[in-house]
């Protein structure tokens, strides 16, 4: 579903990704951990082409992200094509980023109507059942400011799911939440992983979630993936010194 080959990304003189290679199978749930500034968010944003990569190749569902290859030449995709690629990938942000002037339901139906050109009636039906799936049936007419952080994040997940994405990216979805609200969001994500077999890449430090839902865990450090394995591997016998340090700091 996702294939990265030696992806590099620079911001000015700062090299943030220094050759990330990775393959994610359809239906697989991959958790990414790593210290602050190691490039986790940047890598997710590259997959969604919110950032353009400087070197390497990145494919989602067999298609090159942001470019078209003909012969040995790369052509940049036009805006409309980039939008189409993005619409197939759902993204959930640390700070929720719900549209502040729209109710929960309006947040969920906006993109299906504008991008997928769904009829309003169909979008509303689908939106309501998604909000029900994340447990927010009675909050559909609330504005984001009237919702708790956990509720906002669940709306954000429903909003991403409304596009029927092939791939879901989560960037620290629970790290801006009060501890007692983390569970409700992780519960929804577990549902997606275990019941719906959604392909997911999750940046998180919730090792409980990783243990229950992840097929694989990656440790990112200084722009590289330095270790990968099953959750059990990370809990029982991490290999790298850096990983051991990091895990002992967060557990």
């Amino acid at each position, binding site marked *: 579903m996702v294939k990265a080959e030696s992806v590099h990304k620079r911001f000015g003189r700062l090299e943030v990704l220094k050759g990330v290679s990775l393959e994610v199978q359809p239906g697989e749930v991959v958790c990414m951990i790593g210290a602050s500034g190691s490039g986790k968010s940047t890598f997710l944003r590259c997959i969604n082409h919110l950032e353009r990569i400087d070197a390497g190749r990145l494919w989602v569902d067999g298609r090159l992200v942001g470019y078209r290859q003909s012969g040995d030449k790369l052509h940049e995709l036009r805006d409309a094509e980039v939008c189409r690629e*993005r619409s197939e990938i759902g993204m959930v942000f640390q700070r929720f980023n719900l549209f502040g*002037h729209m109710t929960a339901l309006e947040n969920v139906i906006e993109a299906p109507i504008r*991008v997928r050109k769904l009829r309003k009636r169909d979008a509303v039906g689908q939106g309501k059942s998604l909000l029900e799936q994340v447990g927010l049936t009675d909050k559909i007419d609330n504005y*984001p*400011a009237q919702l708790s952080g956990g509720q906002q994040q669940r709306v954000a997940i429903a*909003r991403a799911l409304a596009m029927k994405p092939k791939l879901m990216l989560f960037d620290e979805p629970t790290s801006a939440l009060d501890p007692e609200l983390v569970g409700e969001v992780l519960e929804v994500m577990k549902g997606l992983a275990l019941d719906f077999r959604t392909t997911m890449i999750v940046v998180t430090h919730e090792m409980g979630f990783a243990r229950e839902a992840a097929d694989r865990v990656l440790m990112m450090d200084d722009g590289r993936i330095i270790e990968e394995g099953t959750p059990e591997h990370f809990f029982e016998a991490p290999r790298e010194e850096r990983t051991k340090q990091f895990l002992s700091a967060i557990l």
Partner: protein
Amino acid sequence: MASEPAEPVRPDEIKAIPVRRPGRWVAAALILYLSAALGKSVATNPRFEWGIIGHYFTSSRVLQGLVTTLELTALCMAIGIVIGILLAVMRLSPNPLVSATSWLYIWFFRGTPVLVQILFWGYISALYPRLSLGIPFGPQFVHFTANSVISPFVAGMLALGLNEGAYMAEIVRAGIISVEEGQTEAAQSLGMTRLQTMRRIVLPQAMRVIVPPTGNETISMLKTTSLVSVIAVTDLLYSVELIYAVNYRTIPLLIVASIWYLIVTTLLSFGQYYLERYFGRGTARELPQTPLQRLLRTLSIRHGV
């Protein structure tokens, strides 16, 4: 720690004597005295000629002037807002030529007095007697004489509207910048195009920042339109000028115009309040009360309901 409290006793309600504020009473008395004195002088000074004011207040020429002023205000603001949005978006464009064009426009129109701009448009036919549409240095398709297209009203409208665009651009830009980057990112990650993101997500939220100064601009525009009297557009001010040029009742007629300006300004302020309320939705947990609701609530509290 001390032992557990035996039985929670609810303490008495606080009944404190409020702080006395003698200064407030002195100030109130002073203001009351001054306004009474002013009111008496305005009401009894015969030179105000209240009879004349009453007579001309709803005369057809004054009302026509008022309509022209209102039309001009509405059209100029409409032009200003459209140009303002366009310039603001251009200014934030990654294309340097586009953003420089916007910068140049703003520089020019903010850098010259609007009165001069009005005069320029008023005398445009001296500068360009004939206007034509076509390819520069190539064939021209349509021709007009400037005087037939650019009447004084149109000249005033263009001058004020184009000038307003420069000011609105800065207001809109401040509004756009005030919207969190995360909103744009969320919209983009859903596959919305740049235009959709701007129109559906960013601008509606920028409105909260844009509306108050735009209300201000509208009220200011209402009065700035009086400048078009210099190119003989019969707006409210020019209408009363024409009347007192004949009958020499200068002061009362200026008062007529002033009262109308005050009335319209008051109405515009109300409109602004409700617009702000509308665009503030979603930012506060509860909408603020309207003045009417507040009044009703105060009254009901007084009556102990």
